[in-house]
């Protein structure tokens, strides 16, 4: 051994002895590693991407991290109504682009009975569940009763239902405890879809009065569905994907795709790359700048849909700030904001603005009405109001917001824009950014002076917005709601005639502008990128994002 080593040294320097063989081997290893890498990557993609299987699959990129459940009775977040609506039908629905006029779905007609508190619904007779079994009135009764007894979050919107009764196999009665509250618009949303009674019971479900404790079907319904919708849920890997297959028994005809995959992509940049590459067909969470880069892509079309969501500034009659307790001072804020500039510069013009807390598109809220009775930029009027309020030099208030962005609009940018707008009349907004959850905690506790935040509705029902503003939202801004406004909201909610309702809601919006607690700034027109190999996909503002039933390969 020593001899051999001694021999080695005589052949050259220390360095050379190590260098030569190592270098060769290293080069070999690098080549080997490179080859391995190439082998791993090579052909992994094209074969899969071009297969017939891929063509029969609609792949949707969406941030689904908020979803906690796909059992309809527990669906109340932002992203889960999309798959729930694809798996279940309700009694009635809304057509894309129309959030005012109800359309038939499983029910062909519905009418209040002479007693004034019973709604009688006639059901379609040709509807089958994905299992192939026909849908009957008993399934409808079971679904509503289970919902009423489980009492999870969607329940609170229909807690004024007394009971649901089967009249005959294709007729049900919904009896209300409080007939002055609206019903049909609310039950159009996916949380009130009809489930197949037998299947739910077979998987641990129950509609008994103690269903809150006894119903065990949710885990199964999180990964399977028992509905009449175009697609059937077959799996949900949390934070990863939701899988659906077509329902061959769908009552509107065979759906266009064999499978639907909703892939979780929380990063909009990843969604952008994936839709450019064709790995996904629809991208929901792109921000305006990313949408702009897709404008010239021949394979992608950009679909827009005015949402019913909005970003608003709430101004609180804070005990800490006497200026904000003065209505005229708050109104002065409303006239000092450059509304058009916000929409043009912060969201690329892709937004509208309602008068107040009723988004454009629902009954009695239009953009024209905003021009007529809403706040507008009018600095002279703002200064005049400040003078009337006894604060000709303006005042100070703290504007809080979360470290977040909605529809690609960062609250920080919006707050800075408002700060500079208000400074023009001498109102100083002191910006106080904070963590989103902390912000919400403080705001709901009524502890802020002003907040930038966001509102998205569970259903396109005016009363859900208007009653919120005079109840819980009023508490947050310390508004002592006058009795006539309360009466107005109650009357408008109970009005079953759309035109008369619209007239009442106009008065309500005037009252909201006068009170000047809520300044609605941006109601986004959501921009969704869809590859051109998909046709018939209709976006909707009603709360479930899109109608997947009509989508098919081009």
């Amino acid at each position, binding site marked *: 051994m*020593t001899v051999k*080593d001694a021999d*080695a*040294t005589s052949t050259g320097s*220390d*360095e050379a*002895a*190590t*260098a030569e*063989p*190592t270098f060769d081997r*290293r080069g070999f290893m690098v080549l080997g590693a490179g080859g391995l*890498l190439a082998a*791993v*990557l090579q052909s*992994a*993609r094209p074969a*899969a*991407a071009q*297969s017939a299987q*891929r063509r029969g*699959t609609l*792949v949707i990129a969406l941030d689904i*991290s908020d979803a*906690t*459940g796909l059992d309809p009775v527990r669906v*109340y977040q932002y992203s889960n109504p999309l798959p729930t609506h694809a798996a279940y039908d309700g009694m009635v629905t809304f057509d894309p682009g129309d959030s005012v006029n109800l359309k038939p779905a499983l029910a062909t007609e519905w009418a209040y009975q002479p007693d004034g508190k019973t709604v009688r619904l006639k059901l379609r007779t040709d509807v089958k569940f994905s299992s192939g079994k026909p849908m009957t009135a008993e399934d409808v009764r079971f679904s509503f009763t289970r919902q009423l007894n489980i009492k999870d*979050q969607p329940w*609170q*919107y229909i807690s004024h239902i007394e009971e649901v009764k089967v009249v005959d196999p294709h007729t049900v009665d919904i009896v209300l405890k409080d007939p002055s509250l609206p019903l049909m618009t609310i039950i159009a949303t996916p949380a009130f879809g009809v489930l197949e009674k037998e299947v739910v019971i077979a998987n641990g479900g129950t509609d008994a009065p103690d269903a809150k404790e006894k119903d065990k079907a949710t885990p199964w319904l999180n990964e399977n569905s028992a509905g009449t919708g175009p697609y059937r849920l077959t799996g949900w*890997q*949390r*934070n*990863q*994907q939701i899988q659906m297959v077509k329902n061959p028994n769908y009552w509107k005809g065979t759906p266009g795709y064999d499978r639907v*995959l909703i*892939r*979780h*992509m*929380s*990063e909009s*940049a*990843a969604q952008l*790359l*994936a839709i*450019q*590459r064709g*790995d996904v067909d629809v991208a929901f969470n792109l921000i305006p700048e990313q949408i702009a880069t897709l404008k010239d892509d021949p394979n992608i079309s950009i679909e827009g849909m005015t949402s019913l969501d909005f970003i608003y500034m709430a101004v609180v009659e804070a005990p800490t700030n006497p200026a904000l307790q003065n209505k005229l001072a708050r109104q002065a804020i409303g006239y000092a904001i450059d509304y058009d500039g916000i929409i043009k510069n912060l969201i690329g013009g892709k937004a509208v603005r309602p008068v107040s807390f009723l988004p454009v598109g629902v009954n009695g809220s239009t953009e024209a009405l905003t021009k007529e009775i809403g706040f507008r930029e009018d600095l002279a009027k703002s200064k005049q109001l400040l003078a009337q309020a006894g604060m000709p030099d303006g005042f100070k208030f703290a504007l809080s917001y979360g470290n977040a962005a909605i529809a690609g609009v960062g609250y920080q940018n919006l707050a800075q824009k408002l700060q500079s707008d208000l400074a023009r009349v001498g109102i100083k907004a002191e910006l106080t950014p904070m*963590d989103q*959850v902390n912000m*919400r*905690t*403080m705001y*709901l506790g009524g502890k802020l002076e002003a907040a930038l935040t966001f*509102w998205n509705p*569970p259903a396109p029902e005016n009363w859900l917005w208007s009653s*919120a503003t005079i*109840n*819980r939202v009023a*508490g947050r801004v310390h508004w002592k709601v006058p009795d006539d406004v309360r009466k107005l909201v109650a009357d408008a909610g109970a009005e079953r005639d759309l035109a008369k309702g619209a007239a009442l809601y106009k008065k309500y919006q005037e009252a909201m502008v006068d009170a000047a607690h809520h300044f609605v700034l941006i109601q986004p027109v959501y921009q969704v990128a869809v590859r051109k190999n998909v046709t018939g996909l209709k976006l909707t503002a009603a709360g479930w994002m899109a109608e997947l039933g009509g989508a098919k390969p081009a």
Partner: protein
Amino acid sequence: MIRYVVSRLVVSVAMVLLATLVIFLIANTVPGDPVLTALGDMAASDPAQVAEFRARWGLDLPLWQQYWLFLQRLVHGDLGVSISSRRPVLQDIIDYAPATLELATVAFILSILVGLPLGVLAAVRRDTVIDHIARAVSLVGVSAPTFWLAFIALAIFYGQLNWAPGPGRLDAVSFPPDRITGLLLIDTALQGDWETFHDAAAHLVLPSFVLAAATLGLITRTTRAAMLEALSQDYVRVAKAKGLRGRRIVVGHALPNAMLPVVTLGGLAYANLLAGAVMTETVFSWPGLGRYTFRSAVTVDFPAIMAVTAIVAAIFVLVNFLVDMSYALLDPRVVKK
């Protein structure tokens, strides 16, 4: 030796408990209220529903009692139920951990396979081209923000060149294998599904390189420094004087002595990879523990936060423990002391 092992174990358990206590106290001091993230706007404003929610999740109990309950459950292996996912935290973690474990392990192997030889070479060939290259590689790896690196890698190799597959663990149309371990490479291999194996491996390439970058840099630099020190020792001079071959000196004499700091760092780096892949997981839509932890923190999901803390603390302590044990093997002096 046994006494050493036992004393280390006792300290380890105490460390894990201490870590959970600290996190519990911190999580309880932030003003954010878990009720508000878990309930919708209407329910969150209804005192009755809020009170019921607090009672159901034990949030109405005094702090010390909440912590005591947590400890009691922990002893029974029960990590509680997540407020935001409404499932047992253990089930969530079983779902998410394999994705992270797979990614972190591949990234760790990559950083060792590349970092260790690169560090040794850089030391042996100090101030040559290879040393400079090693320095540049580790500098970029350590200093480039993971988030940025992930996007750049994705934009170039997926978006532009189309060499690598996109975000996610599998292609959209690949069916995941039946779950055995949750590690896709192992599950597909066990089931002989080589097509999906290939798909999973291809999806691992980009994120594991991105995740490995920082670790790789650290390992390279540490190996180089440790090797330089070892190479300047008397025994190396003696070995040279004896006329031993260069490679023998490097691999046989200097390297084992240089390994101590590298093993320490490697252990901690692996624990870090397991616990700190949030950014990489976000960009690559990787359904792992990092994303889960992040979301738990954002939604003030106490049971999930506590469970993840306990697990991460346990990983660190375990890795530290293993590192200490390997010291005992690598360097007999440790035990004698």
